[in-house]
């Protein structure tokens, strides 16, 4: 069974540039999470979906960040105008909430550097 797939693995931007991260969850997993992990910190929840619906995006900086999961499978997280403070690893996780509640399985992450 394939795990959670994320791309790209790395991204380097200048301030003000845009970037998109893509996540393919484990097949059949209905819940998908995006976390931001700054260096030497724990993952911080940005947004999560149940199927195609956003359940909680209260921690997503809405002026520059957006996330979608239009068909309830793959998801895209976009930063419209990156800032140096966005430098972090962006992690995607999925779970099969109908069976295993919120046991999370993570992708390898996308490491973003904003210069």
């Amino acid at each position, binding site marked *: 069974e394939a795990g959670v797939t994320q791309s790209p693995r790395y991204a380097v931007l200048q301030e003000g540039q845009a970037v998109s991260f893509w996540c393919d969850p484990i097949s059949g997993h209905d819940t998908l999470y995006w976390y931001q992990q700054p260096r030497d910190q*724990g*993952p911080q929840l940005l947004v*999560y979906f149940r199927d195609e619906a956003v*359940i*909680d995006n209260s921690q997503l900086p809405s002026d520059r960040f957006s996330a979608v999961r239009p068909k309830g499978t793959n998801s895209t997280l976009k930063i419209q105008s990156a800032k140096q403070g966005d430098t972090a*690893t962006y992690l995607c996780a999925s779970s099969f909430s109908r069976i295993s*509640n*919120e046991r999370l399985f993570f992708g390898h992450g996308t490491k973003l550097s904003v210069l």
Partner: protein
Amino acid sequence: GDQVEQSPSALSLHEGTSSALRCNFTTTTRSVQWFRQNSRGSLINLFYLASGTKENGRLKSAFDSKELYSTLHIRDAQLEDSGTYFCAVGTGGYKVVFGSGTRLLVSP
């Protein structure tokens, strides 16, 4: 807001010794998970608990939902156990919040 505190923040062990990591939370939780993050950044799910205890090899975890804490015991530590250990709690509605981690270094 939700708060998850882990202790200690860092820990050094010699091979063959044992220790415990702790996770305290300030809100009622329905589940706790423990992860290990390796040097490449991959997060591996070690345990998911809705109650009680679970054991897997040299690792054992317990969850006390009334006293609002969880522990992860590492027995007979090995070099490959080095990494950062995170606990994460399910606070309802499938929301999962992480602690700040415990950095473990196992040396010969």
